[in-house]
């Protein structure tokens, strides 16, 4: 894939001690920005991406040539209006779009790091991205937001830096990965590791790629992003370019063909080891672990204004889990609003054209900026 030379990067000099104990330094952090930072530097929004996202949140992704993953949200006059705000989005460490990750080259050996990459956490990702505030000389962000794993990073950001953002909008997320979340991630990892081309994570050295495993991982995950109703309405039992079933294991049904396609295009843009590391980081996410399950304690020092959004048909990060964050914030009398948006589009709703979601996000952000 081309376009990698268009990736903006900083090299972070400041050492970062990861949760696993390893310290990293002089590591690359890839980012993209949209809109302009104003003179007062009070219009900066940091957007955090989800599991398979990257820094190209809007516009055209120069590597994949596809629209950015949050094109519905970020842009002129959109929910995060780039006529008004300066939007920063970084590729998480562990990712594969230019930030320090398993597909980075090890300086000593000159080879890809692969499975020797240290295990990272959501906390590590957020601490790495915090360096961008220094880079842009921003003392305090106006807003931090993101959905799914991006929402987890929002929560972690406020927990780590309680006075560094005026408002926070965690979307379709959870403060602690559930057994079901971990189970689905494990399924994906096992699919990758069961591929003979994975080679214990050293596939790059042998010029192989565990495409089948990664593709199955994506197919399984993709199902969790949609709702049963959404799938039924879109595909039902419709057959794929045939009049009748063929009594074989070809893709008879459209849903099979669709999933296979989603799996096949995913392997072109995503690194299998990155998938292992990032899903692991999500599984380790348990924000109130250090406060013995007391989530309120985590946020007790913040004056940040929260707005939490969930979706009715999201069964991966259901409303009840989002509401637990609201309850924890209420318990400390934090400034928190909450909306469950009606949508049949499942967990993926936060990435799609869901007007109630986009309008509410815009109204909240714009009203908060005025004050």
């Amino acid at each position, binding site marked *: 894939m081309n376009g990698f030379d268009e990736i903006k990067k900083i090299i972070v000099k400041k050492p970062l001690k990861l949760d696993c104990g390893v310290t990293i330094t002089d590591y690359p952090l890839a980012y993209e920005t949209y809109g302009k930072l104003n003179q007062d530097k009070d219009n900066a929004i940091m957007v955090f991406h989800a599991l398979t996202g990257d820094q190209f949140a809007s516009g055209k992704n120069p590597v994949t040539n596809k629209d950015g993953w949050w094109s519905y949200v970020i842009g002129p006059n959109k929910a995060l209006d780039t006529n008004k705000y300066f939007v920063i989005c970084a590729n998480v460490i562990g990712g594969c779009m230019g930030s320090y990750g398993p597909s980075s080259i090890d300086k000593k050996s000159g080879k890809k790091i692969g499975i020797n990459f240290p295990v990272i956490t959501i906390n590590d990702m957020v601490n790495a991205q915090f360096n961008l505030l220094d880079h842009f000389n921003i003392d305090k962000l106006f807003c931090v937001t993101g959905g799914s794993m991006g929402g987890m990073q929002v929560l972690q950001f406020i927990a780590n830096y309680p006075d560094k953002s005026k408002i926070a909008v965690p979307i379709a997320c959870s403060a602690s990965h559930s057994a079901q979340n971990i189970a689905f991630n494990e399924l994906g990892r096992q699919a990758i590791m069961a591929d003979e081309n994975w080679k214990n994570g050293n596939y790059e050295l042998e010029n192989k790629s565990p495409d089948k495993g990664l593709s199955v991982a994506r197919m399984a995950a993709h199902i969790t992003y949609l709702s049963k109703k959404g799938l039924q309405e879109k595909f039902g039992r419709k057959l794929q370019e045939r009049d009748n079933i063929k009594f074989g294991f070809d893709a008879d049904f459209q849903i099979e063909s669709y999933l296979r396609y989603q799996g096949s295009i995913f392997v072109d843009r995503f690194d299998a080891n990155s998938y292992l590391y990032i899903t692991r980081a999500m599984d380790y996410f348990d924000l109130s672990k250090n406060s013995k399950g007391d989530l309120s304690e985590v946020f007790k020092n913040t004056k940040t204004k929260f707005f939490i959004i969930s979706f009715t048909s999201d069964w991966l990060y259901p409303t009840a889990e989002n509401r637990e964050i609201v309850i924890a914030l209420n318990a400390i009398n934090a400034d928190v609003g909450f909306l*469950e948006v009606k949508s049949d589009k499942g967990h993926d709703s936060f990435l799609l054209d869901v007007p109630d979601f986009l309008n509410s996000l815009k109204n909240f952000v714009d009203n908060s900026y005025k004050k």
Partner: protein
Amino acid sequence: MKEEFKIIANSIQKNKSILDIGCGDGELMKFIYENISKKIRGLEISKDNVQKCIRKGLTVIEGNAEMDLQQFPSNSFDYVILSQTLQAFLNPEKVISDLLRIGKTSIVTIPNFGFWKVRFNLLFKGTMPVTKTLPNEWYNTPNLHMCSIKDFVNFCNNRKINLFKSLALTNNKVSSINKLNLNLKNLTSELGIFLIEK
């Protein structure tokens, strides 16, 4: 703005913290936010209304008071407002005890089932009353536990709830309710407005 909201707003001191339970589209909240106190939050069950509140720049949590009030800590607000919603709860008694726990002062308003038009409907027409403050028919009313001004006053007395201000509203006219005029006000008032404390 309706007279009821003006009376509620006038009962609130400047810059105090307020929780408006069942805040609807945020009309009262917005008035209070702009004129009395910025420290106001709402709880509302309808998604449409929550979105209207967000459009107005108000902080609102989508939720159901009967389930969600328990999450608010004790004495966390100076005022808790419950406007014409008490009668729609499955367990109004529990909601009142949550109000008293959360708020230092609670402002409760009720459509008065003792109002003469209500009594007239039932007595002479023999049908469930439909009035300005009780606009629904029996088969589609959200109201489960109707009470009169006198019922509410008795309830507070029995539970030793400090009912320190009682007002009656009819045709946009406000008057005080006291021991002597209770029976009369119970007959002539459309709405009761009560300030209560633990």
